[in-house]
C-alpha cells in the first residue's frame, strides 16, 4: 500500500514538472529528479527526458541521481515524522521571571505565519481577586506523553514523535477540530480564514516542523520549534525572551539551557529545588512542560 502511494505521488509530481517544462519554467535537474523515481526499479534502460529548450533526449537510468531540493516536500515530511533520535525535549517556565514582555509570542507568531489573534504560545494574566496579586503565565502546548489530541485524530494528522514532540501535518488535517476539543490546555488554534501573508507563502513547500505555510481550514499548534532543534538551536520563543523565563533542553541529558542567559543547569535539580509543577496532572496527560511557581525572584 505504501509503495503504491509513493508511486502515485511521484507520477503526479513528474507530470506536474513536465507541464512546467512546457512553459519553460523548470530546469533540467528537476525533471531528471522527477523521472528518476518512477523508473527506479530498472537498470541500464534508457528513458526520454525533455530539456528546458524543448529537446527530447535519452538518458540511461543508471546515470540518474535524485536531486534533493532544499524545499522537497516529501523529504521534509519524512524528517518531520521521524524526529530526532535519542532526544526527549522538555521546557521549564519560570513564572517568577515573567514580566509580560510578550517577546516570545511575537517571535513565535512571526516564525509560524500566525495572525496576532492566533497563538502557539500565549501569556495569560493570572489575577487573584482576593489578594489582588497578579502574575503572568506563558502557556503553550504541553507536548504530553499521553496526548489526548493524538488519540482523537481520525486521520493520523497529529502525531507524537520519538523525541516527544507532538506535531501536526496540515497536509493530512481535515479540519474536524476533534483535537481542539480534546486538548485540556487549549493549546491549539484553527485557521478559520486565509493565513497571514498567504500570497507570500504561496509557492513555499510545506515544512511540517515549522508548520509553514499555514493552510485555511486546518488546525495549527506549537511544534517546540522542531526546525530549530534539528539545527541545535533553541526554540524561537525561548531565545526571544529577554527575562530568562524559559529553560529548554533534553531530558535524557538531564540538562536544560536558559534561553536568555544561556546558562545550562541540571533539570532534576532545577525542578526539585523550585518545587516545579505541571498543569492539570490529575488528567494523566503527562506534560513535558514544567512550571516553577511565581515567587519573590532572587534575580
Amino acid at each position, binding site marked *: 500500500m505504501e509503495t503504491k502511494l509513493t508511486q502515485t505521488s511521484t507520477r503526479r509530481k513528474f507530470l506536474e514538472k513536465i507541464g512546467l517544462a512546457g512553459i519553460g519554467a523548470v530546469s533540467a535537474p528537476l525533471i531528471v529528479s522527477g523521472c528518476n523515481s518512477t523508473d527506479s526499479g530498472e537498470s541500464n534502460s534508457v528513458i526520454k527526458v525533455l530539456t528546458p529548450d524543448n529537446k527530447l533526449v535519452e538518458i540511461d537510468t543508471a546515470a540518474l541521481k535524485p536531486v534533493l531540493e532544499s524545499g522537497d516536500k516529501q523529504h521534509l515530511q519524512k524528517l518531520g515524522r521521524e524526529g530526532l533520535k535519542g532526544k526527549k525535549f522538555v521546557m521549564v517556565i519560570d513564572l517568577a521571571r515573567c514580566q509580560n514582555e510578550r517577546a516570545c509570542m511575537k517571535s513565535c507568531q512571526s516564525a509560524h505565519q500566525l495572525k496576532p489573534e492566533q497563538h502557539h504560545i500565549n501569556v495569560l494574566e493570572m489575577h487573584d481577586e482576593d489578594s489582588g496579586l497578579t502574575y503572568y503565565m506563558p502557556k503553550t502546548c504541553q507536548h504530553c506523553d499521553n496526548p489526548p489530541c*493524538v488519540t482523537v485524530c481520525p486521520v493520523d494528522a497529529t502525531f507524537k514523535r520519538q523525541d516527544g514532540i507532538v506535531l501536526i501535518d496540515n497536509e493530512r488535517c481535515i479540519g474536524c477540530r476533534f483535537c481542539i476539543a480534546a486538548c485540556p490546555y487549549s493549546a491549539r488554534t484553527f485557521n478559520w480564514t486565509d493565513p497571514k501573508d498567504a500570497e507570500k507563502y504561496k509557492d513555499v513547500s510545506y515544512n511540517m516542523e515549522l508548520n509553514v505555510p499555514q493552510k485555511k481550514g486546518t488546525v495549527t499548534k506549537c511544534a517546540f520549534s522542531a526546525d530549530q532543534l534539528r539545527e541545535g538551536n533553541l526554540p524561537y520563543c525561548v531565545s526571544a525572551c529577554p527575562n530568562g523565563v524559559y529553560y529548554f533542553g533534553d531530558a535524557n541529558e538531564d540538562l536544560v539551557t536558559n534561553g536568555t542567559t544561556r546558562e545550562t543547569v541540571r533539570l532534576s535539580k532545577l525542578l526539585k529545588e523550585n518545587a516545579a509543577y505541571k498543569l492539570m496532572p490529575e488528567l494523566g496527560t503527562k506534560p513535558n512542560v514544567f512550571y516553577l511557581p511565581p515567587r519573590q525572584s532572587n534575580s
Partner: protein
Amino acid sequence: MKNSKVVWTILLFACCSAIAMAQEKWLVPEANNDMLSILIFDEDTQLEGKLIYTRSCRSCHGDPTKKDFTIMSPSPGDVASDLYQDQTDGSLFYKIQKGRGPMPSFENAFSEEEIWSLVSYIRSFNPEYQQKLPNLEGIEIPNLTLHISYDENIDKLVVKVTSDSLEVMADASVKAYIQGMFGKYPLGSEMTNELGIAYFHIDSKIPGDTEGYLDILVKTYKDYGTAKYAGKIQAGNPTIRKSAIEGRHLWSAAKKAPIWMIIIFNMMGIGIWGVIIYVIFGLRKFKKLS
C-alpha cells in the same frame, strides 16, 4: 521672599555642580589604561561574559545595542556605544573592577578572568575591534597539554596540566564543562595544585549514553598559553535512551494500539456481525420452512 530666592539659587548651583562632578571624566591611571587581557578573546570568553553581564550588569546597562539602559545620573549608557568601545581594554577592566559612584566595584565579586570575559563580551559588539596582545617578545609562552582521566572511586574528573616535555604545570587555571545539546554545563573552575592536577566532581547520576560516556570539555590557560580538550569520558550513568513512542499505547494511532485492544475490538466486530448473519440465516430458514 528674597531669602527663598537665594536658597533656590544655591540649590540650583549645588545640583549643577553635582551633575558636572558626576559627569566629570573618569580618569584611569595610565598603567591600568594600557593593561592588556590575560585571556585571548574567543567565543567561549564571550559566552562567559554574557552570562555574567546578564546576571550583574543588564539591570542598569540594558541589552547591548538596544539602548534600553536605566535612566540615571550619570547615565550608565549602552556598552555597545562608542562611549565604551572607544576606551581601551584596560580602561574597561579598571572601571568594572573599581567602580565609581552608582557603578559598583566588582573587585570582590569577580575574578580577573571573569572581568576580562566581560570585556570580551562588550567587545563582541564592535565589528572593528581587534584584540591588542601584549608584546610577548622574551616571554616564553608555555605549550600546555591536558591529560584527562576519571577516577570512579571519588567521582572526580582528574585533569593534569603539563608542558610538551611533560613538565608539571602548577597554578594553571582549568575549567571543565559537560557539553549538552544547547549549552555547556559548568563543572567548575580550579587552579592546578603543585602536581599540576585539578579535580572536578561529576555527579555519577548524570545520564551518559548507553555506556555512560559524557561529552566533556576542558580548558586551561597559564601565562597566555592555552589548551583545550573535547572528548568523551566514561563518567556518567549508563542510560538507554528510549523513544517517546516506543511500544503500544492507548493514545497511539490504530497500527500501534495495544494488542488486547485490537483483539477485543475484532472479537466484538466478529461477534456482532456473527449474530446478525446468524439471525439472517435463521430468518431464511423460517422462510424456507414456511
